[in-house]
């Protein structure tokens, strides 16, 4: 059997795990999966109420500006946060059977991605409601989503590895993502950052993905080549780093679960 065939064997398992977790998440809630659409809508409403007066002059159609950033960011931070517990949470399997362990990380990222796809419905609804322009540039969306997925999967592999070894990370990561959120220009216009500090913002990968998302859905323009190149570089580098960190450590996991 070739290596690829061997991995394909576990596809059924991946599907089952994703299905199980999504089912469990909405178990016994009256609205079920509808929450993935409602959640971003409601939090967008709250944020809009709070911030729209603040940034009225700088940003028109604030709801869309906000949603673009929020959807991308919550996928990135949410999935990587779920990944922290991917190995420990599946200890039962890891202790009793051989299975490629990245499957558990991948399943968490896919679950987050499914949420993201559902919340795009919320975005489309708001776009329709606010008469935003739908342009052909929206066709860039799958490319962006693929890049964000790669980056997030890489990050999640790193988090899953260290989350297994150091359980304190679960608490620390919440604080880190809060900080990360505030430097990702989700609620405020990038222009309020003094230009001498801009370069710091540019180091943040999330800014680039959110920027492309806004170009496509909010401004209705083609994302710049430069932004696409940077976003691709971050995605590839993060993925490579994730794979190498995970591979170097996965054989030690069973000592910690």
């Amino acid at each position, binding site marked *: 059997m070739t290596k690829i065939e061997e991995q394909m064997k576990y596809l*059924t*398992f991946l599907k089952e795990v994703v299905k199980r977790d999504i089912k469990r998440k909405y178990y016994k809630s009256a609205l079920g999966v509808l929450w993935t659409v409602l959640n971003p809508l409601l939090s967008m409403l709250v944020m809009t109420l709070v911030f729209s007066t603040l940034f009225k002059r700088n940003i028109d159609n604030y709801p869309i500006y906000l949603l673009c950033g929020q959807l991308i960011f919550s996928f990135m931070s949410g999935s990587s946060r779920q990944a922290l517990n991917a190995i420990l949470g599946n200890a*039962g*399997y890891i202790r*009793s059977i*051989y299975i490629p362990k990245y499957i558990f990380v991948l399943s968490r990222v896919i679950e987050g991605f499914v949420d993201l796809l559902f919340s795009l419905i919320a975005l489309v609804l708001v776009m329709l409601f606010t008469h935003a322009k739908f342009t052909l540039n929206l066709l860039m969306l799958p490319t962006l989503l693929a890049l964000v997925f790669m980056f997030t999967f890489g990050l999640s592999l790193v988090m899953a590895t260290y989350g297994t070894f150091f359980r304190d990370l679960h608490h620390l990561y919440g604080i880190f993502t809060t900080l990360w959120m505030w430097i990702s220009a989700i609620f405020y216009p990038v222009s309020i950052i003094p230009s001498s500090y801009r370069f710091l913002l540019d180091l943040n990968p999330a800014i680039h993905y959110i920027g492309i998302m806004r170009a496509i859905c909010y401004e209705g323009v083609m994302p710049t080549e430069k932004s696409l190149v940077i976003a691709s570089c971050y995605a590839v580098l993060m993925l490579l780093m994730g794979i190498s960190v995970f591979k170097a450590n996965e054989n030690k996991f069973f000592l910690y679960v």
Partner: protein
Amino acid sequence: MIDRNIAIKAEDVSMMFNLSREREERLKEYVINLVKGKLFFDEFWALQDISFEVRKGDSLGLIGVNGSGKTTLLKLVAGIMKPTKGKIYTDGSIAPLFAMGSGFDASLSARENIFLVGALRGYTKEYMRKRFDEIIDFAELEDFVDVPLKNYSSGMSSRLAFAIATLVHTDILIADEVLSVGDAKFHKKSEARMAKMREGGTTILFVSHSAGAVQKVCRNAIWLDHGKIVMAGPSAKVCNAYAEFCKT
């Protein structure tokens, strides 16, 4: 290259556990220990220089007192852990059957677990659907198919584990103390089932601390003690020696 008639081959396998690791889950302690250079203390060798091979269709029993390294060796063969030193080759699909339940999710029903464990072993839904009735029938769980496993008795879930592991096609069966579960009736049934698998060409690696059980199931046996092989050979001979040792 390794012989195609060999199902399992272990070459100078050693397994070391670092007992101090258990206590280093906190970042602070890790950093302190790192600074002090104390990270790699308290070595415990669960297995040392184990070599053996099992031919396809053959059966090997591992016998020894508690803590002799039997289960560790099984886990290495199953691929759950990687040996610290040495190499393990296996050829064919492996069905692990451990005392603690092989990958069940307690919040799911027997039906869902059968498909999940099947998927875990790389079988499609269609294949598992064909085997489904047979598994439920063998495990005698007709009335509990849709009950979550957390409400099962331990006998019920180990019957289910046994049924899944032995009724789905497998090349190598790795079984840990399985015959000690269930009542006398199921006990008999499971012994018959294992005999049938052996006739069907399944390689069996079987662990027990009971000499009688090993002798019944296996043609060859290895006696382990403190992570080392004390004796290896035909199971009757090894089991007798072990039984003698236990008496004293």
